[in-house]
């Protein structure tokens, strides 16, 4: 059963245009697909090839190409194989379609990617803040967000230099070199 399904999947993926497919190992398949075709491909995988478990959606910021890469990892309990469907969308405006209708776990991953990368998923049930509730800066997982520079601009090292530490330092102890001098 499982072998037949795998062969069927191979044939199917070879037939579809604009899909590049590569078998990485006996249980890992990599598929590269255009962003317009991805929801249809996932629908096919779920409906006809038993890939019912959405393991994760990963986002990668390829800032040099001005693109986001979205990777949908789906697992089949029947054929015991994992398909990773890769697609790329333009970094600006960074809008894509939600697959919540197909896979409910997508809601968490899409909300997370929206919060961390700023990609908006149309049709996702909740694009509200979740983890970074009190954060109003740029999406922090983008490559152009430098967390160290942000910290240096926002916080002053002096602020964390209380009197008791100054007293110790006067006697030759404590933090004698400031962090920015070390770097």
């Amino acid at each position, binding site marked *: 059963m499982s072998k037949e399904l795998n062969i069927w999947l191979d044939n199917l993926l070879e037939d579809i245009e604009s899909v590049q497919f590569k078998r990485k190992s006996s*249980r*890992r398949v990599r598929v590269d697909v255009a962003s317009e075709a991805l929801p249809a491909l996932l629908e096919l995988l779920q409906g006809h090839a038993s890939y*019912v*478990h*959405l*393991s*994760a959606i*990963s*986002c*990668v*910021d390829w800032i040099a190409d001005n693109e986001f890469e979205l*990777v949908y*990892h789906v*697992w089949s*309990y029947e054929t*015991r194989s*994992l398909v*990773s469907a890769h697609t790329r969308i333009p970094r600006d405006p960074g809008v894509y379609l939600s697959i919540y209708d197909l*896979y*409910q*776990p997508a*809601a*968490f*991953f899409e909300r*997370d990617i929206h919060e*961390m990368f700023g990609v908006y998923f149309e049709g996702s049930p909740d694009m509200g803040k*979740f*983890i*970074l*509730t009190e954060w109003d800066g740029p999406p*922090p*997982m983008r490559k152009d967000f430098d*967390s*160290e520079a942000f910290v240096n601009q926002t916080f002053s090292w002096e602020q964390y230099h209380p009197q008791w530490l100054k007293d110790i330092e006067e006697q030759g102890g404590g933090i004698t070199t400031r962090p920015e001098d070390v770097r």
Partner: protein
Amino acid sequence: MRPENYQAKSQPPSNEYELNFGPNHPGIEGNYAFKVKLNGDEVLEARADAGYLHRGFEKLMEGRLWIQNIALVPRICVPDPVPMEVCYSLAIEEIGGLEVPERAQWIRVMHLEMSRLAAHLFAFGGHAATTGMYTPMFWGVADRDLVLDRFEELTGGRVYSIYNIPGGVRRDIPDGFLERLSSLLDYLESRLPDYDNLFFTNQVFVKRARDVGKMTQEQALKWGVTGPNLRATGLAFDVRRDDPYLVYDRIEFDIPTEPGGDALSRNLVRRAELKQSIHILRQVIDRLPSIKGPIRCPIPNPLAWNVPAGEAYTRVESSKGELAYYVVSTGGDKPYRVHVRGPSSMHAVQVLENLAVGCRLEDIAQIMFSLDACPPEVDR
């Protein structure tokens, strides 16, 4: 004695009210909040509120060397940190094409199963506490400490081992370690009937947990449930068997299932898995002495190591469910992107929100612990 800006708000008479449940409460191993809407004691609506443990691990990892991240990843899940190290190392090994020596693979399996034992002892103890039974909690935590003693002997760290590095493990097992581990297993096995008497067959617990937080197998698959929570709905799926890594395909073990899908079934699955982990560890103890050879393969200088460009998605079965890492390298000395898929990102958010509706206020903590949700996996 009211503040000057106080203004009474008139509201229509209603039994409905909102309650902030958490971020500190007995239902969870960490800080995690829940906003619940109640009618009397009955939950009408529940919304998860995460972020109290967000430390930005994924961003931090992009700024550190491949090897430095080994010290970061276990902190993503405090009760079960070993799978984090192993999963991250597996991804680097896949990208870099490293062959892990057989001895190291067996040691990793031993380390993983010890961690599973520790995590399950913690989980059932914690669940007992949410139902007002504190003795099992003390027992569970005390016996977990004995596993931590062996961790300390093996790795130097009681909780965070930082032991599994790309290419193998940091050092070989100490002399006499397997004998001491074996006597620990004998002790833990002798404790199982005590746990049963005190907790798993105790009517105080059984009646309290039966039919609480119940889900069907169909719902579980739809909501992305994995691990013991999925097996408690009757589906025998385990990454160790169905997507094997390390040497799990050469080890004999059963996959316990329960049909109920409720808080009771989830605990019974964990109880059965304690026994299976002991069984696996005994096989490791039998076979490890005869497997000679190095404990790690040669890797380049880790401080100037450019892992070749590539990407890998690796999965392991942690005590909580399917744990996965998506790692991307562009050929640099640091990862370009690391995405952590913790099992609790499903269990603690959507699943919990769905299961809480219709239950009573006093059961929320119990449902949370029965799902064995780990908030830092959600926040990362």
